[in-house]
Structure formats: structure tokens, C-alpha cells
């Protein structure tokens, strides 16, 4: 039983480590597909933007972002 619990814990730790390593390896499309002539350090505040993760967490807040960054 102890070996089982340790194994499950180890699997979770390794999976978490793998998630961080994979996140490290992850690249945004705007980084991967930029040419040297394109300055996309700040890709703007549209659909992408520095905050656009590709995941939608709070769809209702979209307009707010625009207003905020516009000021």
C-alpha cells in the first residue's frame, strides 16, 4: 500500500514537472511565425495581445480590456 501511495505521488510530481517543462517549450504562434523584420514583442491589444492566452476565461470582460488599454 505504501509503495502504491508513493507511486501515485511520484506520478503526480512527475506529471507536474512535465507540465512545466512542456510549458517552457511552448511557443506562441506570434513568436514562432514572426520574421526578423517583424517587431512583435508587443503584438498589440487585440485578440492576441500579451494577455491573450488562447484560453477564454472571462468572455464578458472583453470590452473592458479594450477600454483599459486604450487609456
Amino acid at each position, binding site marked *: 500500500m505504501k509503495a502504491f501511495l508513493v*507511486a501515485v505521488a511520484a506520478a503526480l510530481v512527475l506529471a507536474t514537472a*512535465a507540465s512545466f517543462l512542456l510549458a517552457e517549450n511552448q511557443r506562441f504562434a506570434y513568436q514562432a511565425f514572426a520574421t526578423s523584420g517583424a517587431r512583435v514583442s508587443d503584438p498589440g491589444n487585440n485578440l492576441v495581445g500579451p494577455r491573450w492566452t488562447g484560453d477564454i476565461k472571462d468572455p464578458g470582460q472583453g470590452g473592458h480590456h479594450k477600454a483599459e488599454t486604450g487609456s
Partner: protein
Amino acid sequence: MRRLTSIALLAATLALAAPAVAQVRAPDGAPNPTASSVNEEMLFKQDPKIHGRISIPNATAANLIQPQGREWRQFRESWLPWIGGLVVLGMLAALGLFYFTRGRIRLEHSEESGKKILRFNAFERFSHWMTASCFIVLSLSGLNYIFGKRLLMPLIGPEAFATLAQYGKYAHIYLAWPFMLGVLFMLVLWVRDNIPGKIDWIWLKQGGGLLGDAHPSAGRFNAGQKMVFWMVVGFGLAMGATGIMMIFPFAATDINGMQIMQVIHSLIGVVFIAGILAHIYIGSLGMEGAYDAMGSGEVDLAWAKVHHDLWVKEQQAKTASGPQLGRGQVPAE
């Protein structure tokens, strides 16, 4: 004569070329710019996909049309659910049938009952359970890709199902790594006890004690266990290799390659699940006393002598006082 033939050939060539020259002109006599232009049909004859040049940095976008996804779709939507369902449910049915006909393989008591012998040490059990726990989650999240939308989604609704599938996807990607590590651990730990030999053939010919009442002799692992071992190692590595190629898109292969990887990954996956179901059955419900090997690591000496006689002899020959023998018990001989 030869000259005549060549003249005839020349004439034939000219005759063939004449309509082509005529086609270059449009109805109003203007030159036809499409006379030498590419067209879809011609390009598909050269290559199964149409590839060109693109000015954006995403080179994978240079494929104009690649219809191979249609065949992959045919596999995934028409074949895979049936193959997967039949393989997994078929194995469950076979195990059920076996349980109700053969019944549980009981522990045979002898004067050595109650004495324990260490079968798997802590690290072996750790490796087994790490791989096993990952496998359970991987297989469920993997089956979810095939059957989730058919079975689960109508029950819990699209939103709840999408959330579940999202976590399932994360679990599938991240738990794959401890799983692959566990497979490698088990390979290193047990490979020398799993080399097939003549004794395995005898074991198989006698039905392994599963079909009859015979107890063919076996070393640390009998032929059935060796098959499970090589299945886990072989399928585990194959799942890892095909999975990694899909985790890193375009790193090793293009879209067509990934389609093939997905086909291999899913086919091996369902067979792997069926194989492991049998392994789970015989290691728990199917045979009394077998679970202890991976539970506490110590098995009943009477059980060990019946099922792994050669291994017990070897262990007892190695040491009389026995660090392998648990709880200070003395060996029987």
C-alpha cells in the same frame, strides 16, 4: 525504311501537336494563358497533396489541399469506435465467461501456508504502481477521445463534458511522462527474468494451469507473465514514440505522418487496454494469493511453490537465512 519510319513518326507528332497549338488561342484569337498553367487534377496526379510556396513564415501553411484527412476521418469515425468497442468489451466478456466457468483459482494449502516470501521489493512495486496508476488515467482519457462524445456527452451535457475532456487531455499529455519512465524502470528491473525459454513452451502447452488443473513449473515469471511484460514494454514504447510525435506537432513528421501515428496509437491503445484488463483480472479477482505480490510484496510460500517453483528453489538456494524472506520467518527447508 528507317527514314520512312522517322518521317511517319514526325508526321504523327505534328498531327498530335496541332490541336494543342490550336488550344493556346482563346475564342477571340487571344493567346490562352492557361495553356501551360497548373490545374488541380494534374497536380493531384503528380502528388497526393497540392503544395506550393507561401510568403508567411508558417511553412506548414504551404499545403493547399491535402485530402488524406478524409481517410483518417473514415478510420477514426467509422472503424475505430467499432474496433475499440469490440476489443475492450470482448475482453471484458471473455474474462466474465472465464470467471463463471473456471472460477477463481484458489490457493492450494499445504504445510507451508502462512509463511511468506518476498516477491517484489519496494522499488519494483513502486515502478509497477506508478506505471499502473498512470495507465488507468491514460486509458480512460484515451477512450474518452473515442467514446466520450458518444456515451458521456449526452449524459452530462456539452459544457461539463468539454471541461472534463479538457482535464482529460491535460492528464493524458502530462501523465504520459511518468508512464514512459515507469515502463523503462520495469524494463530494466525485469528484463533478465523475462527472457523466453524452453520452459515457457512447456508452460504454454499445458495451458498454464489456467485451463486445466496442472501446475507447470515456472521461474520468477511464467510464460503468461512474460507475455504481459513484453506487451507492456513493446506497446508502452510504441505508445510513447507515437505519442511524442503527436505531442510535438511537425517536430518529426507532417500532418500525414501524424494521422498515421494517431491510427497506430489508437489501435495499439485499445489492444493494450484489453491486455491490461486480463492482467488486472488474473492479478486480483482471478487468482487467490496473486495480488499480495504487488500489494505487500510478500506472497504465501505455498502459493509461490505451486506457481513459481523454480524461482522459490533459486531464492532459497541463494540464502538460507534469507533477506528475501520477510518478517523473520525461516525458510521451510
